[in-house]
């Protein structure tokens, strides 16, 4: 008679790309996501929600994400948030320590193994104290651009977006407000890519909630007064694809730096300095996405 005892699993699938990894693996051998993510998720017996922050290079994704995590861990707006693992604190630590010293954090490296990941358990009384396991990686804008230009260059991006329960898209309001078409085109490409990855049938609207965050909005005060109107005027292509292809989208304005100065380095490259920090509109998009998970 055969024994009923099951052999212990020797490997577990990565949460992001589903590659099988050894039980004691620290990061996924394929996408470099921390394996503690899946180990924690298994312990919690809940499916984690992935919220992805995407946008062009230099749009402010790292700063936005760092501040979001820091505000959550400071219980802003009565959120409760606990980092699951010390690695989850690295991103906010880097962002906050640089800005406190009046410097911007270094650019996120294009190499996937250099990305910082955050895994937080978040709850809010307005959501009935339901606990959300949120996984938020800080992706490089160049990597996103490369994946859009040549799909499957960065398979982890595709896997992440496929599994994302919500997306926060950052768009440079300062550039858009100054008349540059670049933010609109990049956002249009990203949304088109996203629609292809997570979209349903041709006539069905994509259900993933999309918070479009107009960053550096302090440069365009009108943007803060009415983000929707600003987007309709200055990001019309993005506005149209949102309306035509996405069931749940909203526009928000955000800024982190209260005042900006410019210096130069030894090679006469211009260096921006945040003279003081005054974050606005950081939590609202996140709360909006959370309400739709």
């Amino acid at each position: 008679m055969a024994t009923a005892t099951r052999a212990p699993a020797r490997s577990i699938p990565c949460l992001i790309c589903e590659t099988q990894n050894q039980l004691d693996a620290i990061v996924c051998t394929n996408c470099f996501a921390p394996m503690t993510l899946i180990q924690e998720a298994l312990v919690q017996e809940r499916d984690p929600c992935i919220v992805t922050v995407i946008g062009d290079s230099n749009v402010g994704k790292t700063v936005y994400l760092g501040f979001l995590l820091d505000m959550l861990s400071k219980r802003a707006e009565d959120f409760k948030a606990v980092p699951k693992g010390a690695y989850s604190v690295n991103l906010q630590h880097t962002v906050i320590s640089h800005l406190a010293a009046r410097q911007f954090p270094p650019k996120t490296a294009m190499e996937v193994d250099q990305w910082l990941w955050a895994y937080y358990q978040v709850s809010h009384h307005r959501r009935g104290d339901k606990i959300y396991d949120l996984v938020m990686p800080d992706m490089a804008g160049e990597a996103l651009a490369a994946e859009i230009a040549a799909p499957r260059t960065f398979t982890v991006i595709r896997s992440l977006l496929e599994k994302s329960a919500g997306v926060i898209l950052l768009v440079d309001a300062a550039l858009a407000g100054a008349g540059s078409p670049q933010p609109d085109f990049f956002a249009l490409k990203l949304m088109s890519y996203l629609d292809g990855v997570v979209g349903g049938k041709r006539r069905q609207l994509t259900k993933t909630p999309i918070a479009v965050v107009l960053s550096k909005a302090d440069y365009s005060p009108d943007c803060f007064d009415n983000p929707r109107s600003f987007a309709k005027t200055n990001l019309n292509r993005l506005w149209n694809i949102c309306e035509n292809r996405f069931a749940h989208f909203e526009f928000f304005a955000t800024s982190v730096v209260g005042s900006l100065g410019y210096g130069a380095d030894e090679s006469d490259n211009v260096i921006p300095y945040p003279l003081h920090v005054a974050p606005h509109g950081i939590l609202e998009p996140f709360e909006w996405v959370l309400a739709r998970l």
Partner: protein
Amino acid sequence: MALKLFGRSKSKGLRPAPADKSGSVSSARRRHTAEFIPTPRMTLDEDPLKRLIQQGRFSVILRDEARWREQPKAHLVIAEAKRLLEQRMALVPAGSVAIPQTLFAEPGAPEIEIEVEPFLLDVHVVTHARYQQFVDAGGYDDLDYWPEEIWPHLIEFKDQTGEPGPRYWRKGRHNAQLSDHPIVGVSCYEAQAYALWIGQRLPTEAEWQMAASWHINSSADLLRRFPWGDAMDNNRCNIWSSRRGGTVPVSEYASGAAPNQVLQLIGNVWEWTDAQYNISDDVGRPIVGEMPMRVVRGGAFDTFFETQATSHFRSGQIAMGRTFNTGFRCAMNLSAASWING
């Protein structure tokens, strides 16, 4: 005299109202547009002296007392002007300050030592209600109060409806719900024009730092990081971590007062000074703004880092900028209040 020099009227340990848990910092922006109740126009006295008092321009009377003495009942109005000055302004004694010259201001970084003469400083930052008097009196149309270089730009200083006035007002009126909150949405030039109109001026940067750090000439050589002492306490000021989500009335946070009862030097709104913002990196290369900048001090309700809301922290704001978190208070020379020194 009853000038608040050493804080004889104790603050009674007043605590601020509980934080608005539902309010967010960005709600401060919405506050300027939602539920706008225009404040009614005040009826002004026909008597020019009484009108000056009504408008809060007591310094204009006191600067030129002899001119008004022939007016009927002038002595009563002059006495009232003195009473108002003593109520609204406080004496900041002589002292010295060290102004950091580099962005990072690490220990040993270059500083400039400045001796500060005694002067008078507003106890409260200027409110919407006080600023309304300037707008109602046609201050934006009177070129006497504006530097010539700014004349071509005066047309840009308009409110939400295109009327002359601060950025967040409508039809030349402020929101009655914010009457006792600090005036915001004004550039450095608008702040200077108002100060000139009431017969005062903006404080210099050194004066502002002197008032906040209280480094008076004494053998004790005490230097404060905050008006109330050396440790940050977000129950004594309105910064991001105080969770108020926007500006609060200028009379709040009595427990954060300086020894002479000047309130809210830290937090609530950044304060314009009359100084150009000149600063460099740690090897002396200049750091500049996209447009000329003026020094702002003290931090605001949205200041995230407590190290950026101290008596020593310097920041800059574009002089033409009209932000929702920058206001001002006025100062005047002690010599303009001659009866104080006898």
